[in-house]
């Protein structure tokens, strides 16, 4: 018998601190598998966020630099400009990218920095206890919106990926999810493509991942996977939102 599935080499043996059924750990594994498959472990530098994934540096067997809350793309910009031959990815949640770090993320995308951002959208602030995030769904009950999110009071959920497609610096934007084996394999392909675009110096790439948060949604892992299909993906449609052809690759990116 041949071993066909095991822990990727780009992961350490540390036990994940994430809750049961969390999408973060699946995404960590996918990134590590892509790093293994592309054989770029020696040249990859990751930037973990503040949020649930703040301890991501313990799990990846690659170089990691912890960024301040929301400043992942700014830190990644600095790394990429100093070391343009490295593969730099920033890993951010929705509190990190869509709330406190929207300015850094938006401007990094607008400058067309040649980095990859993995954006975990789970519609709540996970680490701090399930408060309403900018990406929370209308009517969603959280600890800071006990009656459900109301558009007049709290605004509408931000569709970060759609907003970023308008920026000329972005090369590849896809929204996927990790709620079923098929979706997980699709997400892995998207992450791989984003890393390949970075190696080709095409510009900013963003992979938004709709991720279950069973603890803060107060559901079982199986129910939360169903909720992504039934509720979340209606507001956040899945698919490739922007894919710039090779010839049209934008300016920035590679530092001369």
């Amino acid at each position, binding site marked *: 018998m*041949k*071993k066909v599935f095991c822990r990727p080499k780009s992961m350490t043996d540390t036990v994940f601190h*994430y809750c049961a059924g969390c999408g973060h*750990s699946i995404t960590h594994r996918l990134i590590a598998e892509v790093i293994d498959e592309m054989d770029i472990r020696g040249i990859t530098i990751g930037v973990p966020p503040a949020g649930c994934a703040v301890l991501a540096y313990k799990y990846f067997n690659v170089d990691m630099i912890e960024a301040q809350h929301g400043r992942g793309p700014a830190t990644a910009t600095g790394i990429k400009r100093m070391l343009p031959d490295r593969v730099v990815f920033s890993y951010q949640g929705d509190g990190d990218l869509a709330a406190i770090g929207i300015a850094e993320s938006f401007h990094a995308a607008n400058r067309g920095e040649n980095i990859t951002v993995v954006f975990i959208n789970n519609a709540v602030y996970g680490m701090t206890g399930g408060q309403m995030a900018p990406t929370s769904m209308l009517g969603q009950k959280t600890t800071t919106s006990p009656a459900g999110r109301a558009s007049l009071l709290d605004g509408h959920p931000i569709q970060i990926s759609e907003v970023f497609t308008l920026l000329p610096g972005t090369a590849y934007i896809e929204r996927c999810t990790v709620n079923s*084996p098929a979706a*997980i394999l699709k997400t892995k392909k998207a992450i791989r493509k984003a890393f390949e675009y970075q190696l080709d110096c095409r510009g900013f790439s963003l992979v938004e991942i709709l991720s279950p948060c069973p603890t803060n949604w107060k559901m079982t892992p199986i129910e939360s996977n169903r909720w992504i299909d039934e509720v979340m993906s209606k507001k956040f449609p899945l698919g490739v939102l922007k894919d710039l052809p090779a010839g049209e690759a934008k300016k920035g990116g590679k530092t001369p």
Partner: protein
Amino acid sequence: MKGYVTIDKELCKECHLCVEACKKGLIHPSREYNTRGYRPVCFTDEAGECTGCTLCAITCPDIAIEVFREKG
């Protein structure tokens, strides 16, 4: 037997996503506890139905499942 899986009981957090993913229904919830207080799932395949399709391992958030398959 075309394949089999091994489940690391200390890593399992009983999210039961693999129970849902296994098309043959070979993974079951169990009653025994591990050292972290979870009740890990168990794999039973007396009829040799497992094909080593890796669907359970792909959905496992905690990389607790390793899959073995016959060559070819």
